[in-house]
């Protein structure tokens, strides 16, 4: 059955392998409706990467939207309680603006969510599954890990002004030391505090080594807890973990550990996730924790060129004088073992390795 597997596009192959990976750890597939009420997204637009969604009126005149995101819908409808957790994964199409913000795209996305009460073990399990998901995509991968508690713990204790905090977060995200220093000087932040925030940016590298270094900057209990959570995660490190505090997600939704996955051929993150208890709280589920991630497939076909693309092993040509019996027996003999294409003329959109000419 090798031919069948070879025929799969990268996206399809990864999707199938991820499914078996997640099912193997007891996560169940969750199939969702395509639409959601428009107002639901507007209430939570900061959670989305872009607030532009495709909206339309349904039969009752309600304003609906094509889903730009799956996590929100899962959280809204979850049956989980603190005693009964929910472990699920999904494979859905979502509709978002492309990078340049010029047009909508249909993006195939797979994700995994754990909702319930999260223990050290569950965190480790989800991180491990994120790591395994990257392995499925490409052998050269990196899982970048950060912790909202560590970053916000430092900023909250050093920077009282919320407006400045927002600007500094932007600098940290861009690893922009020069702009950060300028902003701190303008706002008369003491230089030793500025140095500490600058360290947040420069602290990045292999996980265990950087984790040791980041202990020196602990200012309060929030940061101390963050470090001990990160220490727990280091159990899953296979050498591809990196600690990088420049990953900062929206604090209205995320708390705790957050992470992004990269593979060498793709120029942007292919996996993104984290702990989002704050979103649960916003949705009125204060007693629940949640942790999950999504894998983005949208550009795999561009970066992983399949060798079998557009390729036929044997092209069989025939014409009206060809003996149909002979043609039929050749087709039966070859199909299943080779990729064949039977045609009266040479198809324009295919390459082929050999040609069998049965024309008379």
């Amino acid at each position, binding site marked *: 059955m090798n031919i069948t597997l070879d025929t799969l596009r990268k996206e399809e192959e990864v999707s199938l392998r991820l499914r078996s990976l997640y099912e193997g750890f007891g996560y169940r597939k969750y199939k969702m409706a395509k639409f959601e009420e428009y107002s639901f997204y507007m209430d939570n637009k900061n959670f989305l990467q872009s607030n532009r969604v495709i909206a339309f009126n349904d039969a009752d005149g309600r304003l609906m939207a094509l889903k730009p995101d799956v996590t929100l819908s899962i959280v809204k409808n979850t049956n989980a309680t603190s005693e009964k957790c929910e472990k699920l994964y999904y494979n859905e199409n979502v509709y978002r603006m492309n*990078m*340049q913000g010029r047009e909508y795209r249909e993006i195939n996305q797979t994700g995994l969510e754990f909702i319930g009460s999260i223990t050290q073990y569950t965190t480790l399990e989800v991180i491990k599954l994120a790591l395994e998901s990257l392995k499925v995509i490409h052998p*050269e991968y*990196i899982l*970048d890990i950060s912790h909202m508690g560590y970053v916000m713990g430092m900023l909250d204790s050093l920077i009282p002004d919320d407006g400045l905090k927002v600007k500094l977060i932007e600098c940290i995200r*861009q*690893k*922009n*030391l*020069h*702009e950060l220093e300028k902003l701190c000087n303008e706002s008369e932040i003491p230089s030793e505090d500025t140095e500490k925030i600058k360290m947040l940016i420069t602290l*990045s*590298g292999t996980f265990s080594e950087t984790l040791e270094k980041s202990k020196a900057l602990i200012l309060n209990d929030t940061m101390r807890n963050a470090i001990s959570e990160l220490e727990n995660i280091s159990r899953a490190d296979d050498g591809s973990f*990196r600690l990088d505090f*420049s990953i900062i997600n929206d604090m209205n939704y995320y708390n705790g550990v957050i992470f992004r996955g*990269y593979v*060498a051929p*793709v*120029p*942007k*993150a292919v996996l993104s996730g984290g702990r989002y208890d704050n979103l649960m709280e916003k949705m009125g589920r204060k007693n629940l924790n949640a942790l999950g991630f999504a894998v983005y497939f949208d550009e795999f076909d561009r970066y992983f060129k399949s060798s079998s693309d557009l390729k036929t092993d044997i092209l069989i040509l025939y014409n009206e004088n060809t003996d149909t019996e002979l043609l039929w027996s050749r087709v039966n003999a070859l199909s299943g073992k080779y990729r064949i294409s039977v045609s009266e003329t040479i198809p324009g959109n295919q390459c082929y390795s050999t040609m069998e000419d049965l024309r008379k």
Partner: protein
Amino acid sequence: MINIALPKGRLGDKVYELFSSIGYDCKSIYEDNRKLVFENKDNGVRYLLIKPSDVAIYVEYGAADIGVVGKDVLLETNPDVYELCDLNLGKCHLCVAAPNDYVENTGTVLRVATKYPNVAKAYYRSKNREIEIIKLNGSIELAPILGLSDVIVDIVETGTTLVENNLKVIEKVAYSSARFIANKSSFKFNEQKINLMVGKINDKNI
């Protein structure tokens, strides 16, 4: 091999001089003026000469690993990249400029001609002023002279062009200079190489 996107033109020449002085030279760049790609296998760099306003796009999409681009372009396009250091080259300000005898009529919609519609919009939104943007691609100074717009938002380096066209700076919007940017994914997989480069640039700049 590291792909470096350089802005074509005067700024690109200065940046190349800087990079070449810290060990990333590529002699072939002087040979042929039509080529857009220059490679030096010995020190593992490939220079791509790109229109300045497109550099950030090449880096964001990963066609180049790193690049040099004006802060003005970054402010306008807001790409998802790391901004690793300030090269202190190509220094200028994004300014609002108007004819010498201009007095703002705050009772009407302000017409702004600019190459930087997003910067202009954000600036006037922060002042809560209603404006109408006219996007132009060059010779912005002409717009207020001919009455096409009330003011312009543009980069001002020395101010000579403004003076020659009887214009003056009325407000400064932002400071700009050349910045060293990196694709986020490329940075992860080439962190040592890129950090080494940034370190050398910072040493040189002090």
